[in-house]
């Protein structure tokens, strides 16, 4: 039996993180975070100052964060309505950057929050075979590459100093270019703010030359494996962040229906309301169990559990909006207002539903696996 219950150490780390986030999310900051999209540099630096970006960087922080640890932290991120897309940094950007540094990027500056790095996520494919290269190599000159193209949706794109951009290497495989966003060839256009914590930016690159000092690991190795490996962790952390958001919304709703009285009793005492919340809780716990289990298996199984990773993405993607819709309903008229802040979770839930892959592609792939009898049935 896989014992994916968090260990005492993991629980302690998670609790420390929770305390920090409780402190970071002051009431005025919470108000701002619920009021609209945006990025709080102050919040980002406070989290970094607490050493929480280093957690994800091996050899820099004390702890080699496992996927299960990251998932537990992501649950907290989801629960705190942070005005920063922290999950992306912890589960993907920093682990990749720490393992394949680029000469031009001062890693310490990133870990302390003085500089911000993000990554161009694949928006098509499946976890085991993501479409990494939206950007094309226009020309090659010795060890320099000229890249061009359009990244339709970059998280943190507006504030990032660096965008990690996977490109096809002339000799095959993937290189990752660290694109300096202040360059003249880079144009940034706000692309959407469905999730207040993750406003997206369209990034257009018009022929930027990238030298080896701007390539992760100096471009010496194919980074496909490294990127895809950490993308898996990011995906399960998106699920965990969804679980954390859903759990917080459930907590707020339970509190609300205990206080709100109609017919002389708390509205939560009516069975119709109880059952709605029991179902919401059930959906959330179900997604939590699968996400944690998948995270644990990423740490322990010899082969990545890609089929269950897809199950988890699909389940959490359905669960999150469904839970928030129930929470809105149970708030009655108050759920329909801006006051309770549920809109913020709802928007995030809608964003997470198909982030970053299309659900159709994931379902089609999983269906092929299930039909062929290949998908996990019993995990050893």
């Amino acid at each position: 039996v896989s014992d994916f219950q968090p260990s005492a150490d993991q629980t302690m780390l998670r609790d420390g993180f929770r305390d920090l986030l409780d402190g970071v999310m002051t009431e005025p900051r919470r108000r701002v975070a619920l009021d609209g999209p945006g990025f709080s540099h102050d919040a980002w630096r406070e989290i970094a100052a607490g050493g929480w970006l280093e957690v994800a960087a091996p050899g820099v922080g004390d702890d080699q964060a496992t996927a299960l640890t990251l998932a537990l932290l992501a649950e907290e991120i989801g629960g705190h309505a942070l005005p920063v897309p922290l999950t992306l940094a912890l589960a993907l950007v920093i682990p990749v950057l720490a393992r394949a540094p680029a000469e031009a990027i001062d890693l310490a500056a990133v870990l302390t929050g003085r500089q911000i790095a993000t990554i161009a996520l694949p928006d098509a494919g499946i976890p085991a075979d993501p479409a990494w290269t939206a950007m094309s190599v226009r020309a090659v000159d010795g060890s320099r590459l000229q890249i061009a193209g359009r990244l339709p949706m970059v998280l943190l794109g507006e504030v990032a100093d660096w965008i990690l951009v996977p490109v096809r290497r002339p000799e095959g495989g993937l290189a990752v270019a660290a694109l300096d966003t202040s360059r003249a060839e880079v144009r940034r256009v706000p692309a959407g703010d469905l999730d207040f914590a993750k406003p997206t930016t369209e990034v257009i690159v018009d022929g930027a030359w990238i030298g080896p000092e701007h390539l992760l690991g100096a471009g010496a190795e194919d980074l496909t494996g490294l990127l895809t490996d950490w993308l898996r962790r990011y995906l399960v952390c998106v699920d965990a962040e969804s679980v954390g958001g859903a759990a917080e919304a459930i907590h707020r709703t339970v509190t609300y229906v205990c206080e709100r009285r109609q017919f002389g009793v708390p509205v939560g005492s009516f069975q119709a309301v109880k059952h709605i919340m029991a179902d919401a809780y059930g959906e959330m716990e179900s997604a939590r169990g699968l996400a944690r289990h998948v995270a644990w298996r990423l740490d322990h199984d010899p082969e990545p559990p890609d089929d269950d990773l897809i199950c988890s993405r699909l389940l959490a993607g359905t669960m999150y909006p469904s839970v928030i819709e129930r929470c809105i309903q149970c708030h009655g008229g108050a759920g329909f207002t801006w006051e309770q802040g549920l809109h913020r979770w709802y928007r995030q839930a809608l964003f997470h539903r198909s982030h970053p892959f299309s659900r159709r592609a994931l379902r089609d792939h999983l269906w092929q696996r299930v039909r062929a009898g290949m998908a996990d049935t019993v995990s050893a």
Partner: protein
Amino acid sequence: MNSALPTTLADAIGASNGSPPSPERLRQWVRAWIAVNLPAEWRDITRGTEEGKAVRIRRAWGAKLAAAGLVAPHWPREYGGAALGIADHVVVLEELVAAGAPEALNSNGIGIFGAVLLRHGTPEQRERYLAPMLDHREIWCQGFSEPSAGSDLASLRTRARVEDDHLVINGQKLWTSFASQASFCYALVRTTTDGPKHAGISMVVIDMGAPGVTTRPLRNIAGGSEFAEVFFDDVVIPRDNVVGPLDEGWRIATEALVFERGLSFSERSLRLTRELRTILALRDEIAERSDIDPVLDERLLDAHIASRALHSLVLRVLHLIDGAEGGTLASLAKLQWSETHQHMLSTAIALLGERAGEPAHQEWLRSLLFSRGETIYGGTSEIQRNLIAKAIGMPGSAPSATRGQTP
């Protein structure tokens, strides 16, 4: 390998110097033992299997499992178990389910009443009842539900009057599975009438052959009659048949149920996964002759996803078995298992369409019909939702909602 195959779990453990073998070795041994001992015609009998046949097979299989020490492998050695930990027990369950093995007929009695005896029984009671229960010489039925005590079980009215060294029982039980085959019934009866309804209930053993016991088979929705109504008219049982302290039956029973649910849901979740694979094969077979409604394919895929989530949930229940959190997750597991199972079987019948009535497909139809009970027995879905709601901090019931409902 077969020539050297240990015939019991105890021997298999003995062969590895007394401590349980590694999970891989244990798995290999269980697999090899099943290959030798489980006849092909006993494999994959569904809930829809014709009843007399199912009872026969499940009883004989229970006896075989017991002889090998596999029917309650987590029990202490002196009572026929091998003191396996949860993880090893799950390995055994995985192999049994993977081979399509049926459930032992006494699994309910062993899981609930056996656990009660281990914890609260006197040495004499354990001596008398445990071994024949495990090896299926004696079949047990459960006397909990009554005509007016379903979801509100604690309002049960079957009365046991204590007189000197015996009790006199009067009342009626309902939904009693295998009552006709059973030698004994473990029952909850009311021994005190004043005071709160959860107090004053005792757990007793009733000899089903005693004068005054009448069973009347009840036909279930699938047309079978594995369960019955049982009437007690001045049935006399010795005082020694009370298990645990008098008037403490409610606490004892609920304690046992928590642990039982972890293991039984683990087995059910494994069985559901296996059944889903059979339905996928049925789907492919149908697809050779006719178009499949794409909506049904989507439902099968959702069933796969649900089965994976259930698997993870059940593992959490097993690990948290003693914690309060485990109790809530067990309610969730019950809900999600029963509802997923029903959706799955209803998809199978939808795939078959009007051919579901053909003799070759009777078992699917009976399985679906039988599954309708799964959201009802063992605590209805609504009761599970009430329990979950309470656990997450929802307020007590509004006065208008409490009438006729468990507080």
